[in-house]
């Protein structure tokens, strides 16, 4: 399978076979139609219910709008991916987040609770999850090439 994403003088390019576009359309529909988003992290204060409710309430609208914008960006560019289409940095990040969400939602539906699934390449139900992993890793690889290896003063762990 050739790489789906590439980086050339024109920027980040995505080119997919017809079957890949069809599969990703189905995956996108899964993300858009998913009424149960409990598989997606949204809790900041698991031991402080009042603070957690405030956090969720304050960010709910922004979260909803940002997810919809990501899905729209991916949907529009996916339509052109068979011929090959260049993605802006923002569109590529949107693809990355939607692929991440779809993996979490799919894994939740398949009952994945440990990393053992990564070693199972035979089970048919996991094939799509493996494909999405490959696709996401491919995009991460391309996007990482454009990251400055800057230092930061942020006090991290």
């Amino acid at each position, binding site marked *: 399978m050739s790489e789906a994403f590439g980086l050339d003088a024109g920027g980040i390019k995505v080119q997919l076979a017809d079957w890949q576009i069809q599969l990703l359309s189905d995956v996108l529909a899964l993300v858009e139609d998913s009424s149960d988003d409990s598989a997606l992290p949204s809790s900041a204060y698991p031991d402080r219910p009042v603070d957690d409710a405030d956090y969720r309430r304050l960010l709910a609208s922004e979260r909803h709008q940002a997810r919809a914008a990501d899905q729209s960006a991916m949907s529009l560019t996916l339509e052109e991916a068979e011929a090959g289409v260049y993605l802006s940095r923002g569109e590529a990040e949107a693809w990355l987040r939607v692929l991440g969400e779809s993996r979490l939602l799919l894994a939740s539906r398949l009952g994945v609770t440990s990393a053992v*699934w990564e070693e199972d390449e035979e089970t048919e139900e996991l094939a799509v999850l493996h494909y999405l992993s490959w696709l996401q*890793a491919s995009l991460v690889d391309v996007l990482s090439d454009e*990251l400055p290896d800057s230092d930061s003063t942020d*006090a*991290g*762990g």
Partner: protein
Amino acid sequence: MLCTVNYRKTVINPTRLEEMFSRSNGQPSVVGTVLIVTTRPSTTLEDSTVTTPVWQVIVWDDPVNLMVYVVYVLRTLFGYPKEKATKLMLQVHNEGRSAVASGPREKVEMDCHRLHRYGLSATIERA
């Protein structure tokens, strides 16, 4: 004994301030309406030195997100060099969690939200 100084006005003459302190051996009690000094015997060093509570964002291990993805997200959101992002990711993988950012509550809430947007399991706690 620790003390807290509340300046109601800033019009006090520096010379007079020096005089007041020297007269009371460095421990003034009440000085007119300009400067009020109160003592708090029960105040601890910790209470008096921490003016802004420091919070931290914890990223938790999960069975789905790829290691390379977690490294990329940490580099993108926090500007960490690859080595630092990789170290934090490995801490998440091996120990189950890692503090990836810290600061005032408003800041870490936004950091946590951005991590959630990328699908990483993140929570907030006091540093």
